[in-house]
């Protein structure tokens, strides 16, 4: 860990003002940032502690949705009765992630920004375009069991490791931010993440110094909600494949569907083609297979992660059965 200066912000305005240089970063839960700083994968020269800002509340909005403060810990969000009642897919996703200790510390805002668990990203002795654009990608041609099959580029096949953001994509969340100049932004989660392309170091559309203050969930969607996560241990492991699904069946047909995926993509994945293959159809193996075809049409395996493609297909079909069954 390189040394840094430390400032504790007491107001949101002060926090964004304190990010006065490129090397400065916010710290809240710190569970991923400190993890990476210890390995000098992240080397901020200044930390602005936002952990005491008044962003720890969950509030109901008039439209029936929720506004979640960026500092609400994962554990509290998962256990919130309103989340459990209206957005169980979010609660389930959170509970499927990490450990009790980590969920007590990790925050809503920070979890959106969790970085990949790619083995090579974590080892500064190995070339990585995400750490250092242009250095090369060690995962291509190396071990990539946990890495992405969707949205990759020739420069990076890292997976977004999160669970919560997958559920939030299925729920059409909006991310509310405050920029250094005092401007507020509302960014749809669908526009929030970037594909790696030739700049895998840039993972979101956030500008330098831009602070996530809240996440808004629209009014709860109709239909059944499921989060299914497949991993290498029964608990405390990152997803190989996960599915967040919200599906409504009416009059024997799929009236609406929102499906997002973890473990598969460079970002929490959602593809309108999957839903298009389902909506208006009667739930059937043929419709589910068509949805899986749509999801995986452009999937590309890199050797040790090839299995994710057939696995994703099976998990999606089984999850759709659960979402639409009696």
């Amino acid at each position, binding site marked *: 860990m390189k040394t840094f200066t430390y400032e504790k912000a007491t107001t949101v305005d002060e926090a964004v003002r304190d990010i006065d240089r490129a090397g400065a970063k916010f710290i809240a839960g710190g569970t991923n940032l400190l993890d990476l700083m210890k390995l000098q994968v992240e080397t901020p020269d200044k930390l602005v502690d936002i952990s005491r800002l008044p962003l720890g509340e969950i509030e109901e909005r008039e439209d029936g949705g929720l506004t979640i403060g960026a500092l609400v810990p994962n554990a509290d969000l998962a256990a919130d*009765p309103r989340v459990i009642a209206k957005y169980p897919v979010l609660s389930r996703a959170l509970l499927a992630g990490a450990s009790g*200790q*980590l969920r007590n510390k990790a925050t809503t805002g920070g979890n959106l920004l969790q970085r990949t668990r790619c083995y090579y990203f974590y080892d500064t002795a190995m070339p990585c375009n995400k750490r250092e654009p242009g250095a090369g990608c060690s995962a291509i041609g190396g071990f990539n069991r946990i890495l992405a099959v969707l949205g990759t580029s020739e420069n990076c096949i890292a997976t977004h490791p999160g669970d919560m953001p997958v559920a939030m994509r299925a729920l059409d969340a909006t991310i509310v931010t405050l920029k250094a100049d005092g401007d507020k932004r509302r960014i749809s989660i669908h526009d929030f993440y970037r594909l790696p392309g030739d700049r895998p170091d840039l993972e979101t559309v956030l500008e330098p110094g831009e602070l996530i203050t809240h996440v808004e969930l629209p009014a709860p969607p109709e239909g059944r909600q499921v989060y299914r*996560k497949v991993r290498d241990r029964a608990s405390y492991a990152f997803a190989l494949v996960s599915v967040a699904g919200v599906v409504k069946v009416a009059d024997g047909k799929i009236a609406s569907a929102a499906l997002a995926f973890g473990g598969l993509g460079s970002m929490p994945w959602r593809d309108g083609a999957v839903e298009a293959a389902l909506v208006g159809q009667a739930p059937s193996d043929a419709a589910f297979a068509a949805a899986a075809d749509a999801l995986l049409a452009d999937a590309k395996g890199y050797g040790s992660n090839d299995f994710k493609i057939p696995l994703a297909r099976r998990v999606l079909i089984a999850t759709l059965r659960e979402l639409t069954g009696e």
Partner: protein
Amino acid sequence: MRFTINGQSYQADVDIRTSLLDLCREHLGLTGSKKGCDHGQCGACTMLVNGRRVNGCLTLAVMHQDDEIVTIEGLGSPESLHPMQAAFVRHDGYQCGYCTPGQICSAVGMLDEVKKGWPSHVSDDLSDPTFDDGEISERMSGNLCRCSAYPNIVDAIREVAAASGDAKTAPTSREPAEAGA
């Protein structure tokens, strides 16, 4: 910097990079909290910050000057063990002892979470979780034990939970939940 740990005040002049864990172990003589991985992947450093279980390795000491911190030393002493510590001895909920302080702090924090009604990954009903061995195992999965005293740890926690008299931690029997419950 000033800290309140196990009800005692401490003052320490430490490197800004010092983790809460290293503060305890290297500067305050509180070596009960262990370092197993330093990356939140083993749970050996689990301590209670304002009553909540967290990984002491993944947070900076400087961020906790206003917090009430409890480490294993604050739960009990060899002469006067906390009920959870005593249960771990009775059930052999450890072998080498290195993960043990973290397991015990985690168990104490975990039971508070259960009492608050918090669900887990294996809860069938998120709004009314039952409490059984499967729940204990899932909720304790952030604490690795390579000696694998897991079955004994579950026995110890189940016993303490039952003795607490709280309806929410009264053990029930159920087929352990399947994956993806």
